[in-house]
């Protein structure tokens, strides 16, 4: 009998020994396998730039372009807010300009009697 033949004769015994693993150990092994499968994720691409596995975000090292892309939504939000606030200033400026262009002085609009006079129908 040569080496391979002897090993081939021994293999079924080892297979049987593996099948004969105790129920408790088999359950623990199965649980460990499921935990490992849970941790294992197919590689995914983030923004099409960096291949990574889900669940390992803390281990990712971003490049300059990727960092810039990560900040992009925040920069866009800040820019929008800035533009809106500038618009508010323009609106206030328009109101002031209209007010000053009136023939009546600004105090006239604060006068309640004048308002009630304006509200009265005039023939």
């Amino acid at each position, binding site marked *: *009998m*040569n*080496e*391979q033949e*002897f*090993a*081939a*004769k*021994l*293999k079924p*015994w*080892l*297979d*049987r*020994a*593996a*099948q*004969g*693993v105790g129920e408790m*150990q*088999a359950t*623990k*092994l*199965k649980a*460990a*396998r499921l*935990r*490992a*499968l*849970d*941790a*294992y*994720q*197919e*590689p995914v691409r983030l923004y099409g730039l960096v*291949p*990574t*596995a889900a669940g*390992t975000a803390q281990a990712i090292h971003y490049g300059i372009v990727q960092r810039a892309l990560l900040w992009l939504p925040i920069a866009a939000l800040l820019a929008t807010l800035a533009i809106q606030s500038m618009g508010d200033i323009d609106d206030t400026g328009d109101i002031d300009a209209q007010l000053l262009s009136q023939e009546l002085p600004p105090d006239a609009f604060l006068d309640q009697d004048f308002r009630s006079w304006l509200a009265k129908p005039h023939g």
Partner: protein
Amino acid sequence: MERRAFKQCVYAVQEEQAALDIVQDSMMKLAEKYAQRPIEELPLLFQRIVQNTIRDHFRRTKVRSTWTTLLSNLGMGGDDEDADPLETFEVDDSANIPSSPAGQLEQSQTMAIIEEAVKALPDRQREAFMLRYWEELDVSETAKVMGCSEGSVKTHCSRATHSLAKVLKAKGITL
């Protein structure tokens, strides 16, 4: 897969809880660190991780089996060193799962002797034998997993089979 890995670890570290820990650690390492590798590479990587984790265990615990010493001595210099135990090893072609209680008892005893003999192999011989003949890796793959040359794999496998045949023959076991 995990049962075979578990038995490999039991044969190596001779302690079920430690073997369970090694298999669990190996599976987690494979899942966490090698998820990006091609799926066809994973079985070989898993074997490599298992063997490395076993070695780490040995480094930590410094366990040395008395069986290992005993069998190493047997393998190194017996009276009939020149005789090839494989040449004279008897094979029982009718070996099947026995139906009688006596047959089952005999089989479980044979199984126990085989497992003890495998446990008693020197670490590298057992590792080579298990990977090559149980996991059915080829010589090149086994060498990669073990981190040694293909020649060393062949030598380890040869010594392992001869040692096993010698022990089993001495115990009157026919496969």
